[in-house]
Every structure is written in structure tokens, then in C-alpha cells.
């Protein structure tokens, strides 16, 4: 119980400190408005914040210089502090680079960008890089990319404004260069994701004294697969599958939503009521129920369970997309330009793709980011529970489940305990990054100042 007592004493001390801080401030500045009108709560907040900062600095100092037994205890806080500062610096330089490099439009975008959004974009780019180049890319990919890129550039130069064309050409050429360089650099993962190496259960950290091996910096799992390689391949599998699922959910949801909005009548009623029923079941629970059924069907039909999972989650999530697409669509179909297009005698396809879709891009794009996070978290949770992405595919949720018991070694060998947290942290980092970007986009598009 002493820990609670310590906590209470610390809080009382901070409260007293807050009062002293305000009192001294009033005396020293001769009642400057800032101190004169400061409520006690605000003073308390300032002192609490300062105390937290001092505590973090002291912990960091102990973690860097203390005895191993003490330093181990603060190892994770140290990593968290270093990571936080490191990410902040990277995000800052990325924004700085964006302000000076690129076209006028992109420069303007970067100038108004908060640090969190910049961090989000860097992280998303990093994940995409990991996912694409985890394994060796084939030369065919580069040829296809080049074949697609050249006409795109020519089209952009002919049809777009000079500024926009320049940035498109820039993006295409940078992408091509990166692909060609990575083709010669080779795969990012040191080993294959299904490759079973000589030693099983090598301890992470690469320290031979406690059973590690410098060849496998994060160790190997219970059947001898390299954990670092599986983490990198996890980006490809987990993120790739989540992305495909989200795209599928949007194809289903947005199409049905716009159809319901334009045609209306009984079609709208039927789809809306069906969606209402599907949304009345909690999504994770429904997904688990359907996965149980799919796990019986899958071997019978000879289709991998992962395909079923993509379909099931896409259908469940498309209900949410449908709601949004229908609501946005209903607001658009009453516009005059839709009336005009109808009078011109345009078909349903033209109405949906050329009139409604371009006007619904902004809310749909923000929804895509949020939906991706939900899908990604659902897939990770399903895998964590053991019914999601199936082995031998490397996947972060499954890795957390398999490595979880290592956490208990945190007090003696921190790097060992880091392995499961790395996989879980990889999931958290990506969703946080996407959320930061979406938050910024929503804030920008809504024009909210307060």
C-alpha cells in the first residue's frame, strides 16, 4: 500500500508547490495579470507538468548511468523517451524538407502542417517502404512501373497545369529510382518469413552470454524463425491485407450507398434496413462468429481462411461506409447540377462516377483513413485471438500472442521483453500515425479554428 501513500504525498506536495508558485509569481511580478488571475487549478497544472518533466529527466539519467539492476527497471521508459524525441526530430526535419523542396502547392501544405501530422506522414511512408521492399522485388515490377509511369508523365504534361505536372513527374521519377536502387540492394528482411533456421528460441538482444546470437538481433521464435525478418514481413502481410480489405469495403459500401442515394425508393429501404440489422451486432463479435463458420468451410472448399477473413471484415465494415456514402450522397443528389445532368439524359454510371463521386471525395478520403485503422485493428485483434491471419504467414497480432510470455523477463533482461512489445507497438504506431493525418485533414477541411 506504500505506493498509494507515496502518490498521495506527491500530489499534496505538488498542490502546495502550485500555491507557492502562484504566490511567488504575484509577489515577484507585482501582480501581473497572468499571475493575479491565475486559478489555483492552472497553477497546480503548471507545477504538475514541471514535476513530471523533472521526474522523466531524472529517470532518464538513472537509466543511462545507474547500476544494471536499477537501469533495467527504467529501460523501457528510456527507450520511450528516446523514441519520442527521435520521432519529433524526424518529423520536424521532414516538415522542414517539405517546406523547401517540392512545388508551390506542396510547400504551402507543409507550412500549415502540425508536427503530429508530419510524424504521421513520415511513419506511413516508412511502413509502405517496409511493406513493399520486405522481400526481393522482381524485375517485372520495375518494368511494369516504368511502362505505367511514362504515359502518366506525358499525360500530365499535356493536360495539367505546369506546376501540377512537375510534381507528378517528380513523384514518378523518385518512385522509379527508389525501386531500381532497392532492386540491387535486395530484400530488407535478412531471412525469409517461413525460413526455419538452425536454432530455436534464441534470446533477443544478440548477447551470447544469456543465449543470444548476433546473427539474429531479435532472436528466433519457438520453431527457429528469425523474429526480425518476421516483423518486417509482418508489415507486408498485416498492412497489405488490411489495405486490401479496406479497399474492398469501400467498393461495396460506397457503390451501394451512392446507388441507394440516387435511386432511393424501395432499394434504399431494403439496403438500409439490412445494414441496420448488421450494425446491431458488435463488429468484432460478428467477425468472430463468421470466422468460426468460415474455418469449417475453408478446408472443404480448399480456399485459404485469410480470403474468407478479408471478405467477412470487408462486408462488416462496408455497412459503416454505406451509412456515410448514403448520407453524403443524399446531400449531393438534391443539388442543381445533378438535376441538370439528369435533364441532359445522363445514365446512372455517369451520375455516380462523374458527378457524385468527385464531390464526395473529401469526406470519403477521411473515412478511408479511419476505416483502415478499424480494419487493421480488427485484423490484429482476430490474429491475436488466434483466428485471423494464419501461419506460416508472418503477422504482428499472432507474434504478440506467441511472444507474450517474454514480458515476464523485463526485470532481468529488458531486450528480451521488448520482442512482443515491438510487434504490438508496430501496430499501434501505424494506427496512431494514420489517425494523426486524418485528424489534421478533418481539421483542415472543416476550417475549425476553435
Amino acid at each position, binding site marked *: 500500500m506504500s505506493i498509494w501513500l507515496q502518490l498521495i504525498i506527491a500530489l499534496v506536495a505538488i498542490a502546495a508547490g502550485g500555491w507557492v508558485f502562484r504566490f511567488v509569481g504575484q509577489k515577484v511580478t507585482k501582480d501581473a495579470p497572468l499571475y493575479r488571475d491565475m486559478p489555483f487549478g492552472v497553477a497546480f497544472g503548471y507545477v504538475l507538468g514541471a514535476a513530471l518533466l523533472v521526474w522523466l529527466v531524472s529517470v532518464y539519467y538513472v537509466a543511462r548511468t545507474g547500476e544494471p539492476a536499477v537501469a533495467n527497471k527504467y529501460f523501457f521508459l528510456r527507450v520511450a523517451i528516446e523514441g519520442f524525441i527521435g520521432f519529433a526530430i524526424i518529423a520536424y526535419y521532414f516538415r522542414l524538407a517539405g517546406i523547401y523542396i517540392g512545388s508551390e502547392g506542396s510547400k504551402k501544405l507543409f507550412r500549415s502542417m502540425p508536427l503530429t501530422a508530419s510524424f504521421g506522414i513520415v511513419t506511413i511512408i516508412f511502413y509502405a517502404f517496409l511493406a513493399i521492399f520486405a522481400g526481393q522485388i522482381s524485375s517485372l515490377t520495375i518494368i511494369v512501373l516504368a511502362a505505367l509511369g511514362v504515359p502518366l508523365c506525358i499525360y500530365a504534361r499535356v493536360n495539367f497545369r505546369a506546376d501540377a505536372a512537375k510534381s507528378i513527374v517528380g513523384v514518378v521519377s523518385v518512385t522509379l529510382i527508389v525501386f531500381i536502387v532497392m532492386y540491387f540492394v535486395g530484400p530488407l528482411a535478412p531471412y525469409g518469413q517461413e525460413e526455419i533456421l538452425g536454432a530455436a528460441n534464441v534470446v533477443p538482444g544478440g548477447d551470447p552470454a544469456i543465449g543470444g546470437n548476433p546473427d539474429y538481433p531479435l532472436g528466433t521464435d519457438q520453431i527457429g524463425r528469425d523474429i526480425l525478418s518476421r516483423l518486417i514481413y509482418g508489415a507486408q502481410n498485416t498492412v497489405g491485407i488490411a489495405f486490401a480489405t479496406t479497399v474492398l469495403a469501400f467498393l461495396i459500401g460506397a457503390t451501394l450507398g451512392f446507388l441507394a442515394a440516387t435511386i432511393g425508393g424501395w432499394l434504399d429501404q431494403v439496403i438500409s434496413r439490412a445494414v441496420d440489422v448488421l450494425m446491431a451486432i458488435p463488429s468484432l463479435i460478428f467477425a468472430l462468429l463468421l470466422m468460426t463458420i468460415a474455418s469449417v468451410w475453408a478446408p472443404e472448399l480448399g480456399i485459404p481462411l485469410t480470403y474468407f477473413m478479408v471478405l467477412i471484415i470487408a462486408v462488416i465494415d462496408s455497412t459503416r461506409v454505406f451509412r456515410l456514402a448514403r448520407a453524403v450522397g443524399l446531400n449531393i443528389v438534391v443539388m442543381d447540377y445533378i438535376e441538370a445532368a439528369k435533364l441532359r439524359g445522363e445514365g446512372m454510371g455517369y451520375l455516380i462516377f462523374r458527378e457524385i463521386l468527385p464531390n464526395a471525395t473529401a469526406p470519403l478520403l477521411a473515412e478511408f483513413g479511419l476505416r483502415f485503422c478499424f480494419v487493421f485493428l480488427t485484423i490484429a485483434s482476430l490474429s491475436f485471438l488466434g483466428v485471423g491471419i494464419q501461419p506460416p504467414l508472418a503477422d504482428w497480432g499472432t507474434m504478440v500472442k506467441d511472444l507474450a510470455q517474454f514480458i515476464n523477463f523485463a526485470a532481468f533482461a529488458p531486450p528480451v521483453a521488448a520482442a512482443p512489445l515491438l510487434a504490438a507497438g508496430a*501496430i499501434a504506431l501505424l494506427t496512431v500515425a494514420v489517425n494523426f493525418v486524418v485528424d489534421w485533414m478533418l481539421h483542415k477541411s472543416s476550417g475549425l479554428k476553435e
Partner: protein
Amino acid sequence: MASILRIIAQRLALGLLTLFVVSIVIFTAVNLLPGDFAQAILGQGATPEAIEAIRNDLGLNDPPLTRYMQWLGGAIQGDLGNSFAQANFASFAGTDTGSGLASVASQVAPRFENTMFLAGVTAMIAVPIAVTLGVLAALYRNSIFDRAANVMTLSSISSPEFFMAYVLILFLAVLNPILPSLSNIYEGMDFSERLTKTLLPALTLTLVVTAHMMRMTRAAIINLLASPYIEMARLKGISPMRVIVKHALPNALAPIINVIALNLAYLITGVVVVEVVFVYPGIGQLFVDSVKIRDIPVVQACCLIFAAAYILLNLMADILSIISNPRLRHPK
């Protein structure tokens, strides 16, 4: 008053109808399964006669409509059928399959109580913290505190529950042994011990749910701050805290209550992952275990219970928001 009662009755009827349709969806989904339950119970090496006997016992030879009616009728009376896992065990042990079946209700009932306890503890911690922090963030909007809170809540909303759970285990159970990381709850435990063992899963859920509620509370209050009567109060010279607590909060109560109810509904699904991490003997863990061994009656029952709780909480949010808003109470 009569109009309120009528609206509540309407919503209740609608909720019951939804639940009825949901039960049909669950039943149909389960009945799409290839092969049959009898085969699943006895395994590959079963003789046709044994399968036929079980089919008759469980009533699998009846048409789907009859079976659905029986299942629904039983579920309403609290009889959710028999668990396959127990039947499997009984048939291996050589006992009579017909009478040795364990009922689903007997498995679900104690665990349901545990889950309600966990959700209750979480709500007790999360709701006051979330409302207080939300009010503070609205009061000091765009300050350092507000921005830090914004970043922290966004991060905790978007992290998976198991990440939160393991981070808490790492800091509060392994590095500083304050709380137990395993929630092995059994019957006859005294209350304080039960509370200590529930605290870590409850804290995990609190982190996830508080963030959401706090953001919504902040948004609801800031939304109101633009209205003329708040400006009036400010011009009278009332302190900012008083403006928010006395003038804005009562009017923001409707959306806040709504958000709390919706988040409690979210808790219902959140418990699944958290219960698995902490080995908490609740209904979520039973559900996942049954999914793994394909114990269909238990899966079906858990699914129905989760859906019912979800619908009920959504219904409550709906009704509370109607009661607290006169404009909705008297629709034109």
C-alpha cells in the same frame, strides 16, 4: 409525459424487433455450416448409427424453422441449449450422451456476472475521469494541456487493446509489482481481493474508453460555447469555470450521456481481447475459447448476449437523448 412513454414504448418495440431479426441472422449463419453438429461432436470415426442417435437426441432432424423456434423459445426462458464441448467429453468418457450434456446457461451465467463486474468497475473509474478531463480540455482549449491531451487521447484510441494491456502489465505488474497480472477470479473470493485482481484489466479498458468519452465531452461543450447565452454569461463577468459548469454542462449533458452509453456498448466488445490477455474468466474469454473449438451452441448464445447488451445500451442512449432534449420530445 404520455408522449415520452409512447416514444419509449416505440423504441423498445423497435429494439425487440431488431433483436429478433439479429437472432434470425445468427441462427441462419450458424446453419450454413456444412456437415452437421453430430459429426462434429463424434469426430471422423463415428458410426452412422451413433450419428443418427445424436441427431435424434439434439433434434437435428427437424426442419430449420422448428429448430429456430425451439432455440428462440428456449433462449427467452433462459435455456440456451447444451454445450458440444461437454458432450464431447461425456461421449469420450463413455457416459450416456443424452443426459450427460452440460447446459450452455450454466456455463454462461457465472461468467456473465464476472464480465458485468469488470464493465462496472471500468465505468466507475472511466466516467468521472473522462467528464472532468473533457471539461478541463474545453476550459483550457488550445493550451499546452489541451494539445497534450489531444495527442494522448488520439494515441490511446488508436492503439490496439492488447498493446495497452501489455504496456500496463510491463509497468504495473512486472517492473513494479503493484497489481497482479493474472485475474484468476473464483467464487467465494472476498470483495477487495476480487477488486485488486480486476483492476488491471479495468485500467486497460479505462484507457481505451476514457479517451473517446473525453474527446466527445470536449467537443460537445465547445460546440455550446458559441451560443449567445454563453456569451451573455461571459459578459456578465462570470468566471470561465462557472460558465462551463453552470451554463454549458447542463445543456451538453444530453450528448455526453449519449456518448457514455455508446462507450459502454463499446466496452462490450472491448472486453473480449482484454479478458483473453488477463485470463479473466468472463464471457468474452468463453466466447473466444468456444470459437476455437467450434462449440456452436455456446458461440451462438454468447453472440446473442453480446448483441442484446449492445442493442440495449444503444437503445438507452437513444431514449436518454430524447428525454433530455425537448425538441426531440415534441417532434413537429
